[in-house]
């Protein structure tokens, strides 16, 4: 069986068309099937599995999949940290062209040669390994990399000096107040292969299809990094004085609906905070309040670092942060009692065991050497494995599409479940409950808000507290 990993998301239709033109008709893929494991028409020797694009090079590097289709930028992100040649880019599929660009705010750090003058350079990126390599190559004396789950372009200038982002048109970001500082990579979608599979398995019946359909024999582009000399020259005027606006972060994604409802019930209307692509900086008529829309996963870290004063996120994200950084000052100040779901340990439905104790006994009896735990919450999964005294285990950090991992690519999931319907659809079941998660307000417990910020904070909490006492209408 030749196993191929395909990306979820916006790339499905063009990749689906390309695969069909090659003669690999993956059933339901281009149409957005909810199933993660897809058959290939007329090819019983080929199996396809849908992942978040970011997870594909990891799965191919691990050898769980022989081939994968993903952006070259994600391959380079893995290779920036793990130099071993476990993955090889095979074919440029000439789709999804992107530039990986370091951007700074036009109002602050708008040129690369200003970076060297900053006492600490803050870099936000979905590509933390490349961001780290960028900083090391530039010999930045001191830097912090904020690895984010998305929306890195929203960070400069308040929360980062540089954002390293993948964009199809860097010029479009200038409209959002960003200036390109340095292009690291010109990326497109590639067919990639596992080196060990290429060395010992005959994949030619699939590789030939790609070769016939696509004549581009280009070599993969290399990542460029700045040198120290590139970052020296100009200086950035350092901001002085304390800001007196209260900074609030609100989430996009699946929590947006719950938060939007709570804010509306509290009489807080943020212009632009609606739809599937909300504005990153919604307008508000609340005097003294500044609002930014970012990923809920990234909020606790920004609150802990003092970049954001208040954030509305899920308890799951806060707990994940606290499991990573137990002494963090980020703390829950109000449970909004909305967006409720359970974080649970989940296994395959067919496993003849119904509790974590029974599952462990079963695996011990089977002589299972290593337990594979997949989760979007790796620190939580790690904490769970330790507290349940797992023997040797691997935590597979994933970006999403988690329900498809068990049983082939993981033994156990640490997974959020709202109604249990998705689990049933994917032949999964809950064997242990970690905790109940709801949307909550978080703040820095060590911060001492003064004057206008204190007044705005108290008003915000008062209004939200009233809302939390009324059940969410479903």
């Amino acid at each position: 069986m030749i196993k191929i990993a395909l990306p979820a998301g916006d790339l499905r239709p063009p990749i689906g068309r390309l695969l069909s033109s090659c003669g690999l008709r993956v059933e339901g893929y281009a149409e957005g099937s909810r199933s993660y494991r897809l058959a290939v028409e007329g090819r019983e020797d080929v199996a396809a599995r849908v992942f978040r694009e970011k997870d594909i090079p990891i799965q191919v590097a691990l050898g769980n999949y022989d081939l994968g289709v993903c952006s070259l930028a994600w391959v380079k992100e893995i290779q920036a940290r793990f130099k071993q040649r476990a993955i090889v880019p095979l074919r440029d599929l000439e789709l999804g062209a992107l530039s990986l660009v370091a951007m700074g705010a036009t109002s602050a750090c708008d040129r690369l040669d200003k970076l060297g003058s900053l006492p600490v350079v803050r870099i936000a990126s979905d590509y933390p390994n490349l961001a780290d390599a960028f900083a090391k190559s530039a010999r930045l004396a001191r830097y912090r990399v904020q690895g984010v789950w998305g929306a890195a372009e929203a960070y400069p200038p308040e929360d980062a000096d540089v954002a390293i982002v993948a964009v199809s048109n860097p010029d479009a970001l200038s409209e959002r107040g960003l200036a390109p500082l340095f292009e690291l990579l010109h990326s497109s979608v590639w067919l990639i292969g596992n080196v060990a599979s290429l060395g010992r398995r005959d994949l030619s019946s699939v590789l030939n299809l790609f070769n016939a359909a696509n004549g581009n024999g280009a070599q993969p582009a290399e990542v460029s990094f700045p040198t120290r000399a590139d970052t020296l020259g100009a200086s950035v005027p350092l901001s002085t004085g304390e800001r007196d606006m209260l900074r609030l972060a609100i989430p996009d994604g699946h929590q947006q609906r719950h938060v939007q409802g709570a804010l509306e019930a509290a009489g807080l209307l943020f212009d632009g905070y609606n739809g599937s692509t909300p504005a990153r900086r919604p307008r508000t008529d609340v005097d003294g309040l500044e609002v930014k829309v970012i990923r809920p996963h990234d909020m606790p870290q920004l609150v802990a670092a003092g970049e954001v004063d208040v954030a509305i996120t899920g308890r799951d994200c806060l707990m994940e942060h606290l499991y990573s950084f137990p002494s963090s000052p980020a703390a829950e100040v109000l449970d909004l009692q909305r967006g409720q779901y359970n974080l649970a340990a989940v296994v395959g439905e067919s496993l003849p065991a119904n509790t974590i104790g029974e599952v462990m006994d079963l695996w011990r009896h089977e002589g299972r050497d290593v337990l594979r735990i997949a989760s979007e919450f790796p620190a939580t999964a790690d904490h769970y494995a330790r507290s349940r005294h797992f023997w040797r285990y691997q935590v597979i950090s994933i970006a999403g599409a988690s329900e498809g991992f068990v049983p082939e690519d993981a033994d156990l999931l640490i997974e959020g479940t709202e109604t249990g319907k998705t689990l049933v659809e994917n032949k999964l079941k809950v064997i242990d409950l970690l905790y109940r998660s709801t949307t909550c307000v978080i703040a820095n417990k060590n911060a001492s808000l003064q004057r206008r910020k204190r007044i705005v904070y108290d008003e915000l909490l008062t209004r939200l507290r009233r809302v939390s006492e009324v059940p969410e209408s479903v």
Partner: protein
Amino acid sequence: MTDSLRCPGMRDLLPGDMERFRRLEDTFRQVCLGWGYGEVRTPTIEHLHLFTAAGTLSPQMLERVYSFLDWDGWSGERVVLRPDSTIPVARLYREQFASAPVTRLFYVQSVLRFAEGDASREDWQCGVELIGDTQPSGDIELILMASEVLSRLGLPAELKLSDPGILRSLFSAAGLDSEKQLALYDRVLDGDLSALDDVQAALPGAGASLAALLALEGENAAYLGNLRTEIGPSISGIDPVLDELASISDVLSHLELAHRIAPVLVRDFEYYTGPVFYLYVDGQKVGGGGRYDALVSVGDRGSPASGFALDMDALMPLLSGLPSAATGLTTVRPKADDTASLRAAFELARSLRAAGVRVEVGDKTLAPGDVQVVASDAGFELRNNGAEPTSLETVDETVRAIAKSSS
């Protein structure tokens, strides 16, 4: 065969290894204390930014450090498992000794850097740092200390001197910027001596044999004189470099310490700013050091500094032929598992240890030369060197008999 549970690149040190380790450590400590140095130990975890600033670790080295976010690292700033000892000692100096005109410190600790496969990722070093304005005597002091350690260990060492300032001056005069200098230097170190021809072509004032002389290893200060002649008078900044090396070479020759001078020798081109030396035993590099004035600074002020480190992992196997301290062990065996035998055995063992005898309580198989005492409430039976057993009644009597037999 089952897979080892040991992490790749990590080593267990067995009793025999630890004996050699301690012998090396003890000899090194004695030499350092004798030269007026004080021992320090720096933490295993340091801030990454100590090592990332220009002039500290090279980008190639930074790619191999073990860095991570600590449990309180929510700011995104990383920490690192100590990849080098000089930079932490420089930090320690800034924080604890900055007001002292000269500080002499030494350490025995490991550094952790990733290596492929099962190549060592944790390397133990005996290191010395001399911080303050001690030149030119400081460089000579360090070379003599390192040589003394090897001499006391009975290891015949070969000493090589160099100074990256020679090539740095030539490369600058040839119009190369710092990046091109590094690239060219790497080529030369990798054995591509044709890179020096390019430099010679860019320096019309230099003699025809410049590249050939640079590729040589000279035997004494005379070689430096020849090099000076071939370089010609036009290379700015090279005279003090050659003068300093000549001075060191002259003193070492006077002290009958054989050495060679090699202009192309130094791996850490960015790190070192002055004379550098390496030590070899049987052709294998076992240590080295030099001057790195850019690493140690207090405020905006740089402080002259130099140091060396001996590679304990390279040296320990070379000590394998030395006599083992594991010999001369006395075994006390309880005659039975009853309380009275155990009481007698442990009482005798305590008295023997107080008398300076190494004792193991157990049932070890006797080898030639071993002494064994069988203990019971009835007394002690001494078995020595395969001779007839001797019966003894009291603890004192037995201790005296064993002390006599071992003397």
